[in-house]
């Protein structure tokens, strides 16, 4: 039971981590009115994907995603999972780089970004090497402390809310559904992580829906808090709207000058867990696909984190971060859609084969 709860925590944390950075900005660029429409339709789409994924996984109660692909055949595992690992690596690099930029703009204006990168990479790698059980246990502490901060940030920025900024509240058109950028939004999902835990011990669909609703509520707040404060016209010009929103608040009774501090703290927490989970996933994939006496997950994690560190180091500025992030997210969309579908199709196909055999 505790493990399920902890899995839920990790699920929520990694989504929140994605949501804090580029999610609001993408949403603003998609529509001028009724932003909730985007968030909710995105939520629904994801939920359908989760349902398909869970359906597929549930046919193999004791196996995780890698095992399932390996039962399909080694070639299938190689074709789908190795590119996925590389994509994950790119995601990590861009994610840490973007977070580093955000952290630097909040706390460490004079510090070179490589120093922050080193710190974040070291901690993430260390956590990933310690394994999933460590991540799960640590995530419980992270979840509660970070959520406190997030709620504090949202609550305190409500002072500056001007509700008319979000008008018109009704979506004027549904064109965003056909926009490529809407698909990019799907890249901010980490549902594939669920496949790495055998479904016997994994979250049930109902629990998963509850966690997903929590995430959606949070996404809504991440989109609407800056919107309420600045309005659509201003918000589209920001790189990190949520940060600006937190920055706008001045609490006279508070010790700290800006409560962006807490926003920054929560970003660090999110980021560490997110990247640790991703690195751990890479480690699992590579170790299982290339079994050998010397093939240890920790070596793979070290190697991949070093590569993504170098990659992140080469990205020069915010414009590039945005461009490359979108590219890696876009590839992630591909995998988020393809991998659950393949597992589901495999189940349907092989199930049908079996029933043909019986009749």
């Amino acid at each position, binding site marked *: 039971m505790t*493990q399920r709860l902890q899995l839920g925590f990790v699920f929520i944390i990694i989504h929140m981590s994605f949501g804090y950075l580029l999610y609001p900005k993408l949403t603003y660029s998609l529509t001028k009115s009724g932003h909730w429409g985007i968030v909710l339709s995105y939520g629904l789409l994801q939920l359908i994907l989760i349902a398909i994924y869970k359906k597929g996984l549930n046919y193999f109660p004791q196996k995780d995603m890698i095992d399932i692909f390996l039962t399909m055949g080694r070639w299938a595992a190689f074709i789908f999972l190795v590119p996925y690992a590389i994509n994950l690596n790119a995601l990590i690099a861009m994610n840490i780089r973007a977070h580093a930029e955000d*952290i630097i703009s909040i*706390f460490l204006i004079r510090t070179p970004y490589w120093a922050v990168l080193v710190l974040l990479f070291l*901690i993430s790698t*260390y956590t990933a090497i310690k394994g999933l059980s460590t991540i799960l246990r*640590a995530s419980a*502490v992270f979840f509660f402390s970070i959520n406190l901060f997030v709620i504090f940030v949202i609550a305190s920025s409500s002072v500056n809310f001007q509700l008319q900024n979000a008008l018109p509240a009704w979506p004027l058109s549904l064109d965003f559904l056909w926009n490529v950028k809407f698909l990019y939004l799907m890249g901010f999902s980490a549902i594939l992580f669920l496949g790495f835990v055998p479904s016997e011990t994994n979250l049930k669909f109902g629990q998963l829906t509850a966690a997903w609703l929590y995430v959606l509520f949070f996404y809504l707040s991440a989109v609407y808090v800056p919107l309420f404060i600045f309005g659509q016209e201003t918000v589209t010009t920001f790189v990190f709207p949520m940060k600006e929103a937190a920055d706008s608040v001045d609490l006279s009774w*508070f*010790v700290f000058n800006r409560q962006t*501090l807490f926003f920054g703290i929560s970003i660090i927490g999110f980021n560490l867990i997110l990247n640790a989970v991703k690195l751990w996933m890479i480690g699992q994939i590579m170790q299982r696909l290339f079994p050998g006496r010397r093939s240890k997950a920790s070596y793979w994690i070290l190697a991949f984190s070093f590569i993504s560190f170098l990659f992140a180091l080469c990205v020069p500025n915010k414009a590039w971060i945005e461009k490359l992030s979108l590219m890696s997210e876009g590839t992630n969309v591909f995998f988020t859609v393809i991998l659950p579908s393949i597992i589901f199709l495999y189940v349907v196909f092989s199930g049908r084969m079996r029933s043909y055999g019986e009749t």
Partner: protein
Amino acid sequence: MANLVQEMKRTFADHDDFLILDTQFNGAAIYLIGFNTLIDFPKSNFYVRQMAERSASIEELLQNLGEQLDVDAGELKKAVLDGNLVVISENERNAIMQPFPQSLRRNIDEPRNESPIQGPLDAFGEDIDLNIGLIRKRLGTELLCHCSYQVGELVKQRISMLYIRGKVQSALIEKIDRQLKQIERDIETIDDLDKYFGHRKLSPVSHLFVTEVPFQAVHLLKKNRIVLLLENQPFALVFPHLISDMLSTANDRNHPLGLSIMIRTLRVMGVFITLVLPALYVALTTVNPDVLKIDLALFIAESREGIPLTPVLETLTMTVLVDLITEAIVRLPKSVGPTITMVGGIVLGQAMVEAKLVSNLLVIVITLMLIASSVVVGVQNALYIRSLKYPVFILASVFGIVGLISGLAIICIYLASLTSLGIPYMTFRYKGKEDIR
């Protein structure tokens, strides 16, 4: 003189406290053999004489006295070393008897390392049987199991394992049983034993939680834990050691629930303050003065005016100094301790501030931290929390607030990664019977 006696004499020729007392029984000589440092000879001799008056023959006397009769020379030697009295008659019959021992044990005393308020005041002593008795007296149930081990290379030392049957997983019991039977070296200290529960070199967190209050040990036994007792150590070693041990004692619940929650919250705050405060001071003075409100930032800047040391050096000096003083006072005899405290207090509190070596604010920070670090339960826990503040401090001096937060994150992750025999250190709901996670 009998051959056996001669042999014993030869074996223990280098021991000046080895004593052979010969007395007469019905005209025949009997020899009482043992160490006079372990055995109260006059009393034991008197007892033997009394028994002799009631016995008709030597055989009967030996039967009355001894627990074991007619054993070989090797066992006799071992018995002597264990502090027993060996009785040998002229015709080579022998017996091992329980003598009146020299009193080498202190009585049941008050705990020295913990001070329970509003709770039972007896503490474990050095005698392992006495310790087990203290637990048995409180837990009069047939479900309390007791396994005894004799381990060691040079000296066989007794280790006892106690648990409540049905509360601890039998697989765990078997695992510990196997570990304890594997021990080949001498177990002198808690750390020696600790090594057999998995490798944790240089880790500040032990596998075993140390308590010297039987009340606490019994409470933990009921909470599905295992208690190990080492001979000659006035502690109960509780396995597994969980993070909650640092924050709560059984004795808290002698207060109403609300108060005990308050006490525990204070302990959590204490841990947090110890880890954060010095690091926060450095972060706010060196890297991130901008996060503070302007008047606060100015106040801090003002208090540091004219101080030649950098904040990092200043804080490091003070924290190390405070740790030094704490260590010194612990080691010093009670008569010298207060002098050091007084001088240390004056030097730290006044002289350093007046000489403008450290700022006023830092002295407050350090004092707060020192007080906070002593809040947690257990000397060992307080020490490890104190040691963990250094990495956070170093990170904070480089990265400011970011370093502080990542330092805390690292500590959290590190503690989450610790397990002893598969049981994680960071569990708040430890259930013995169910699947352990």
